[in-house]
């Protein structure tokens, strides 16, 4: 059984169709990448899965349960964690405290502050933030903010982790570190669904790739398979004689 199944998911904003009839299955334990040109509906899909947006039509089934109508905090409790493309650290809090929010509220079993702090520190070490735990989030660099995004999502102990462009803006070295971190997360039993534009990272990391264009899934398979798919090439490069994106 798939951990996550999107069935005929549709979301429109006014006249704009952001996601159309989207069908997608994420298998337990895999790393699946969702790629596509800008405006393809990838981030909207993440918002639908995490519950920040409600679909016009279709259902979202997580772990065999229809979660379509559930609020985001309940979905977090069930095991859906996510990062944000635009990094949004909580101000007035240290790095450690940012992560503690997930430890304290991300699951249904209440934790003491002490236990939450201990577990948050362990997550900071996992993503390579241990030297910054006491720091205020103001003044953190891009790579560390990306790490913090991942750490906060991990602190909710997700079964499914949605990573929204965590590689964007990283140097090649930092991207390699991020890939290692994401692999380590998966090896701990977390299923990963990621959005990314950095194709080398997608190639190195993802076992399967789904390609979206204008809100529809136009291809799915291994990186090599979709890279050869004419529909994908057309979506990225435009048809000869047609208009490029």
């Amino acid at each position: 059984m798939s951990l996550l199944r999107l069935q005929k998911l549709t979301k429109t904003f006014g006249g704009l169709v952001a996601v159309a009839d989207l069908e997608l299955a994420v298998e337990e334990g895999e790393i699946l990448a969702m790629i596509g040109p800008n405006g393809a509906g990838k981030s909207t899909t993440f918002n639908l899965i995490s519950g920040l947006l409600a679909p016009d039509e279709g259902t979202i089934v997580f772990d065999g349960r229809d979660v379509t109508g559930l609020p985001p905090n309940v979905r977090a409790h069930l095991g859906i964690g996510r990062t944000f493309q635009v990094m949004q650290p909580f101000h007035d809090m240290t790095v450690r405290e940012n992560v503690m929010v997930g430890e304290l509220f991300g699951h249904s079993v209440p934790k003491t502050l002490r236990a939450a702090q201990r577990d948050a520190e362990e997550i900071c070490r996992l993503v390579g933030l241990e030297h910054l735990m006491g720091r205020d989030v103001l003044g953190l660099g891009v790579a560390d903010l990306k790490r913090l995004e991942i750490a906060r999502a991990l602190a909710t102990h997700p079964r499914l982790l949605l990573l929204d462009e965590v590689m964007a803006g990283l140097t090649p070295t930092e991207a390699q570190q991020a890939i290692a971190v994401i692999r380590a997360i998966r090896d701990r039993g977390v299923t990963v669904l990621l959005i990314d534009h950095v194709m080398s990272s997608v190639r190195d990391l993802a076992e399967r790739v789904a390609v979206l264009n204008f809100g529809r899934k136009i291809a799915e398979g291994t990186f090599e398979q979709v890279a050869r798919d004419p529909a994908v090439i057309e979506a990225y490069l435009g048809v000869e004689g047609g208009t490029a994106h």
Partner: protein
Amino acid sequence: MTSRVALRWVASAAVLAAAVAFPFWASRAEPYYLQIAINVVIFAVLALSWDLLARTGQLSLAHAAFYGLGAYTSALLTLRSGLPVPAGILLGGLLAVVVAGGLGILTLRLRGIYFAIATLAFSETLRVTTNQLRFTGAATGLVVPPLLGGGRVAQYLVILGILLLVIAISAFVNRSRWRYAVTAVRANDEVAATMGVNVVQVKVAAFMVSAFFAGITGAYYGHVFLFISPIEVYSLAVSVGALVAPIFGGLYTTAGPVIGAAVLRVGEEILRTTIRSGYLIIYGLILAVVILYMPRGLAGVWDALWRRRA
């Protein structure tokens, strides 16, 4: 760090002892001081309860609404149905809680300036309506029965007790898991929600607790100063006063709003009695300078001084 904690405990105990002893001295030495002290404590309760909501990122101008609702509820209940004054005050607070629950859910999606405007509109609507209703004494207002037979010392101790209760709640919020929830909601409620924080619960609960204290304080005010009118209890000055003190003293802290309220109210009184005319200009200037040059208020200055020493 430990010396700082110890100092804080000693200072708190000393302030508490002085606050409790004060009315017994003042009632003999200078009853006028006792009146000011009651005003200071009322102001402190309003400021700290306003800050409790502000910690979730909601800038409310509805404190006057709940203050007025509490004042009118208790006044009418005690006048018309002969309810004892303490019960009236409590019911005034409870009505404010119920109304805040409804208003909180309706305004849930509004943030920042939009929330402020909605809450201001709500306050003004209540003021204008109360001004028209014969049932509430319209613009003339109501003469209200005294709390505890009018004994000033006992009345002072009542509001001091209420202040201690808000202080306890505020300190609890800032030391418990709830600090993480409110701070996260204030920074970004969507991110907080995806991390498992029940944003609706946090915002509405904060609104209700905040409104409760505005409500009982308004009710208390009526039964201590024995007269209420729409223009007085539903005044924008109540809402603005409640937000100026935390900004002046230090937002999102327990001590900041209380100290801010005390310094501002006593300072205003000193200015009023020493400068014959135009004291409000000086008062306004001082406020402006503090807010411009001390963005974290008095608490921020205090923190900076300690950091420099350490």
